């Protein structure tokens, strides 16, 4: 991938992010923040790449593994906690009717 096309990817990704969140009810601010936060743990892919490409370089393997751990802590914890919050909302209407 050339650098220029990566820049395009960056630009379009940012624009997409700006467009995605238009009007959010305040109710959802916390879950949305928490969900987006889980997605930012996508660096786990970078950590994985690092480990795969480390080729037996033990210090690098360790750094990659720690990095992967941090990222997955972010991802798994983030999605679970978001789900816990949202479960409380979605339960309501079904109880009522």
């Amino acid at each position, binding site marked *: 991938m050339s650098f220029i096309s990566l820049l395009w990817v960056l630009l379009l990704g940012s624009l997409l992010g700006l467009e995605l969140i238009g009007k959010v009810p305040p109710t959802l601010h916390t879950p949305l923040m928490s969900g987006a936060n*889980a997605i930012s743990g996508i660096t786990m892919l970078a950590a994985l790449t690092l480990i795969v490409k480390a080729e037996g370089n033990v210090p690098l393997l360790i750094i990659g593994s720690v990095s992967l751990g941090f990222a997955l802590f972010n991802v798994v914890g983030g999605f679970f906690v978001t789900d816990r919050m949202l479960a409380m909302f979605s339960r309501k209407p079904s109880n009522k009717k």
Partner: protein
Amino acid sequence: MNLPVIIKFVIDLLAVLLLALGIKGLSKVKSARDANRLAAFAMSLSVVGLLSYYLGTSGIAIQSWIWIIIGSILGSLFGAILAKKVPMTSMPETVALFNGCGGMSSLLVALGVAIFPISGGQENLDFFRTLINEVSISVSIFVGAITFTGSIVAMAKLQGWLSTPGWTQSKVRHFVNIVFAVASLIAFFDLINGNTSSIWLLVIVSSLLGIGVTLPIGGADMPVVISLLNSYSGIAAAAAGFVVDSQLLIVAGAMVGAAGLILTQVMCKGMNRSLVSVLFGGSLSAQSTASSGSGEYTNITSCSVEECALTLEAANKVIIVPGYGLAVAQAQHTLREVTKKLEQTGIEVVYAIHPVAGRMPGHMNVLLAEADVPYEQLKEMDVVNPDFPATDVVLVLGANDVVNPQAKNDSSSPLYGMPVLDVQEARTVFVIKRGMSAGYSGIKNDLFDLPNTSMVFGDAKKVLNDLIGELKDLGVGEK
């Protein structure tokens, strides 16, 4: 293009699409839960895509597998345990902690690549490409470090482990932070010039910058800071994407970065604060000591739980204003019992939710939902404000700044202009509060001095329990 490349391309494309749909869906109540799961699915899909690509091309060494498994099991396990165990009241600090770890991950990746350049294709890089590598490594380290230390400080402050040190409120802090920022810039250029050892300087000063910027910010503004740091961790991920040459990382990182920025702005609007004043203005309470708004209370009326119960019994319409104090006292469930009794007698009960009730926008909705309060009874500020004049009784539970009329009447108040609930318009206001201490902003609340306001002193949970007893004695809610 060979097969593994094509497969990875298709999977990445699908993952980006699903992530975008996930973020989109998270901003609507109905679709939010499914959207969250969709995003989680997209993330796992992206891992499968990456691993299958390497399996199909270079292969993955056993040693790599071992470290992958160790890292993922430990990280996922701790993440899942914390997510399951943490009480709903400490949601903001939990998000901050997760976020900081995401930043740490980006930092470590960049650090690893910088110290041990990845083999394969690296030898024949031209000057331009090397420059880009170094810039993206530096950005990743810089933003990652700020995200990490900033989030940890934010978490510690919300947990109450860390208070705002006095010196951070003086102007000196700007000078200190400028020194850190300039030092990071020097390290940044030094690194690009090929001086690899300055990477440690960059790590240290950007970490210090994260601490220096977050430490002076008052607790009331913390949600905004966490949201902003969340946006940073997206940027850090995108930068890490440049480091390891992954479009998926760049798209997802950029998306979270931009979405986080928008969310930060929305939150600022809800709290009537500008991002600049949040970041550089210091904490609200420090400003308020100098403002004319502070002072002694002159006209406090306190009353007993019994009086409160009698007034409630005679009411037709009651509005509850819950605040963080309610959540701290763990009194949501007791409150729900009180309102159930009132409803059974035919009294209309509504909860008025200020956009920033709790510690984070939407936090209070989560807490009340936990106590089985029907979603339809939660009214947003703009909807409920016109109803106050036709309301008999308002119960303010552990809320303070969001019901301060100063925000409307006193232009010298630091709260001035913040949207508030017009509770003083109601016939009677009961404020259930431990004592006369100030609210989160540290500002005196003019509401307490008004003639139609009565204070019921005590722990929210205990007062509510007593209230249930009194209501029972009055025969309210018994059929």
